[in-house]
């Protein structure tokens, strides 16, 4: 018997706004921008039943989605959740983005717009399902009123309300207007997961069709009447300032309308086409003031981080028992040092935004991961109140965390303000996109362990030295100045809790911040922490002469059965322990991240010193799986991102600036190198874990542990391209 777990939810605490008619938002300039259902809604009459649900006279259902869509599939997942509770016809469902300006006017009726940290589903599942349930309750209420029958004699299914005793039916569209006038119910009942018919099913994405015909307009593709194109160049040394610039040559080039200073650290060229703007930009001579940062190179950063490994002072992120004493008192100690480089997000669509500024109002069209933050950044950049501004989100050509920062939008605002009344589309060249990144933080780590008589570790000290994203963002770190994000996957508790039952454990952080701006990068700090810890786990097992699976098994059995379950699953499917050719090996990795338990087993062979990744078996327990086929796509995709990083990803620094400014020097994995991925979604229910990021962390250590198994070569520094496998 499945346990019934229907939830009663108090709705009165929320501020649902009822009754206004949807459609037209975001079309201030009168042009047709293909953003979801907006265009369609202007044709058919549509009624907003509540803030989440808009029903057209033609029976179409438009679900509002506040989170951004950058390929991760959250949009479809969120619509599935509203539709599940609404009991509408899935074939008539479409979506639209509410704008952050509308959110501001309606007291944040859609909650957070922030799209990162794999939180799209796991942090909004409750209120979006409630939104669907409220709309359904209102629609049923309106039908019951129409028929003068008790509400509880009516049910809804596939967009049709039925009065069960009489068999009378009404379509949602017939009662939508009346429903919108009814008072919001105080409580709604959410469906038992066992009764889900849309959640948990491999629904096709709602945003695919226009992606295969070229019709979909990304931010980079927008075109407006009278629009001009801008290209920008900011100081390549982060934190540096513009001293002076010489525009004389650029100004004479064809198509150029203006050469402008932007903020205190950039210049821009505005022209009739982007190509003309970018060509002219190359001819603008700029003198930069870069200070001491202009002298920094990669070797200096490495030295700075190495010093942190031995520093006396460090922030303690996780301490249980007394690891330092246990290690100091042991005569059998193992220690190893690892490093992880700076890396760029490099989404395929470079940073861009289209902005129109007038003295009264400023509006932007932007591929942003956070509509609300974008609105604030735009208002701040142009010196207006958020109420005077608006941001219209487009679909994103990749994000990976980069578009959670709004610096590019602020820059576009500053350019547009100098060109009043003219729509300006700013796009960065790939080179500018690479130079002005918010890179994966650079860190090093030293792991030290002592062992019990049975060879199992009784104490582990993990010292992390390197960048803090929160410090760079000047986020309040509290009195102790600890950045908790640094400890993802080795944290004492929560979504990134350390999974192993080791008696004495200490994770501490010597914060060392080079001037290059760090940012949230798909997976964030699990990328290096899981690489460090899972590699060292393998080293400890080998040191103890133990089987790496059995070694982990003993440390997980009591402390994290869910982590053990995904690990056992990948090991079993991969045939762990089977006989392999002498040049081949299997490797394991497991962790908890973003609320999910994930594991990978990789099989590799080394042929003439070249790594051949044959197959990766992956398992993820994300609690509830909203759309299994999209989770599978995310797991495989995260491996491409994680393995690109492990194999090739490195931004080196010279004279304070990054050197890898395009895909020729910053390679990304291509199809031929992609291993076969076999993913199992092991949704054990009862919790909501993320899926976009967790598995990224296990790909690299699983592959590198397999490399060790094949060769005896232990890779402790990334990327792999700089290492020898022979």
């Amino acid at each position, binding site marked *: 018997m499945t346990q019934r777990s229907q939830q009663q939810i108090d709705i009165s605490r929320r501020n649902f706004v009822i009754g206004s008619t949807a459609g037209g938002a975001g079309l201030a300039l009168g042009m047709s921008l293909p953003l979801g259902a907006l265009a369609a809604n202007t044709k058919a009459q549509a009624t907003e039943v509540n803030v989440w649900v808009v029903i057209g006279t033609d029976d179409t259902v438009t679900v509002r989605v506040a989170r951004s869509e950058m390929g991760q599939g959250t949009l479809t997942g969120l619509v599935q959740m509203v539709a599940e509770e609404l009991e509408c016809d899935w074939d008539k469902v479409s979506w639209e983005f509410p704008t952050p300006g509308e959110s501001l006017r309606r007291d944040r009726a859609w909650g957070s717009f922030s799209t990162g940290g794999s939180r799209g589903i796991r942090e909004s599942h409750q209120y979006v399902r409630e939104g669907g349930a409220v709309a359904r309750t209102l629609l049923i209420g309106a039908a019951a009123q129409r028929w003068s029958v008790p509400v509880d004699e009516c049910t809804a299914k596939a967009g049709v309300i039925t009065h069960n005793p009489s068999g009378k039916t009404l379509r949602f569209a017939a009662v939508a207007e009346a429903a919108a006038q009814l008072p919001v119910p105080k409580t709604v009942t959410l469906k038992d997961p066992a009764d889900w018919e849309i959640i948990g099913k491999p629904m096709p994405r709602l945003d695919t069709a226009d992606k*295969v015909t070229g019709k979909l307009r990304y931010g980079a593709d927008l075109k407006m009447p009278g629009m001009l194109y801008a290209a920008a160049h900011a100081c390549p040394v982060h934190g540096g300032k513009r001293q002076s610039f010489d525009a004389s040559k650029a100004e004479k080039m064809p198509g150029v309308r203006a050469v402008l200073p932007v903020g205190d650290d950039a210049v821009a060229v505005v022209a009739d086409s982007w190509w003309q703007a970018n060509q002219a930009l190359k001819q603008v001579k700029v003198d930069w003031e870069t200070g001491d940062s202009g002298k920094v190179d990669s070797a200096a950063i490495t030295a700075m981080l190495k010093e942190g490994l031995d520093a006396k002072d460090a922030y303690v992120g996780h301490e249980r028992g007394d690891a330092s004493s246990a290690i100091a008192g042991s005569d059998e100690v193992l220690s190893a040092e690892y490093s992880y480089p700076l890396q760029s997000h490099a989404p395929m669509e470079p940073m861009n935004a289209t902005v129109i500024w007038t003295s009264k109002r400023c509006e932007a069209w932007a591929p942003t991961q956070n509509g609300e933050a974008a609105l604030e950044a735009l208002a701040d950049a142009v010196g207006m109140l958020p109420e005077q501004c608006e941001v219209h989100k487009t679909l994103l050509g990749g994000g990976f965390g980069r578009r959670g920062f709004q610096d590019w939008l602020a820059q576009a605002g500053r350019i547009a303000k100098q060109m009043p009344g003219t729509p300006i589309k700013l796009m960065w060249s790939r080179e500018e996109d690479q130079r002005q990144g918010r890179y994966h933080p650079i860190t090093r780590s030293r792991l030290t362990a002592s062992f019990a008589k049975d060879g199992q570790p009784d104490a582990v000290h993990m010292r992390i030295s390197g960048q803090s994203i929160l410090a760079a963002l000047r986020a309040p770190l509290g009195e102790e100045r600890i950045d908790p994000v640094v400890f993802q996957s080795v944290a004492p508790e929560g979504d990134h809790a350390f999974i192993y039952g080791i008696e004495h454990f200490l994770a501490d952080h010597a914060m060392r911040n080079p001037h290059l701006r760090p940012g949230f990068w798909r997976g964030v700090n699990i990328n290096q922490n899981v690489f460090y810890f899972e590699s060292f786990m393998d080293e400890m097992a080998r040191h103890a002469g133990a089987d790496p699976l059995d070694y982990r098994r003993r440390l997980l059995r009591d402390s994290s059965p869910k982590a053990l379950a995904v690990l056992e699953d990948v090991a079993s499917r991969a045939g762990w322990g089977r006989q392999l050719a002498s040049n081949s090996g299997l490797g394991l990795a497991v962790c908890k991240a973003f609320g999910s338990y994930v594991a990978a087993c990789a099989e590799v062979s080394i042929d003439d010193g070249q790594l051949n990744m044959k197959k990766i078996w992956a398992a993820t327990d994300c609690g509830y799986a909203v759309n299994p086929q999209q989770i599978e796509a995310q797991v495989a995709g995260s491996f491409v*991102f994680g393995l690109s990083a492990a194999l090739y990803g490195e931004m080196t620094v010279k004279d304070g600036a990054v050197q890898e400014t395009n895909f020729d020097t910053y390679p990304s994995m291509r199809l031929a190198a992609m291993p076969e991925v076999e993913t199992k979604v092991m949704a054990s229910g009862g919790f909501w874990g993320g899926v976009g990021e967790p598995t990224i962390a296990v790909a690299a250590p699983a592959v590198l542990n397999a490399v060790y198994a094949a060769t005896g070569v232990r890779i402790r520094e990334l990327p792999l391209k700089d290492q020898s496998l022979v």
Partner: protein
Amino acid sequence: MLKLNINGSEHTVDVDPSTPLLWVLRDHLDLTGTKYGCGIAQCGACTIHLDGVATRCCVLPVSAAEGKAITTIEGLSADGSHPVQRAWVELDTPQCGYCQPGMIMAAAALLADNASPSDADINQRITNICRCGTFPRVREGIHRAAELATNAMTDSAAEEVTS
């Protein structure tokens, strides 16, 4: 003035002949399905067909495309019915989708040359960058498109026989 044959129509454009075809398509003709990703022919987001050959047009001077048949993603099919497009929809291949027009054009050119490509053929010919990591479904999609194209040929042959 340059004369271009794009998706079966004649276009006249007044641009510097050294301008890469990509920017003429995007900024002058508003054919924005063809994407900018790197500007150095590394990523393939700008892949079009030039006389049927998959070509990265971010480094191709527009003058070099004069007198040739240019096909962009907008012209691959009138209604998204090209086997590659159908396979892509069937498998939900795109994630963010930004690289996919280039990927689809590269795949369509491969299938035009080789109706039933092996995995090794796909590895060799599909070298576009996709940061989302859609490669497993790109590979599967090419095999599926090959099937769809073969089925369509069989169907139309059967139709000819019966009619």
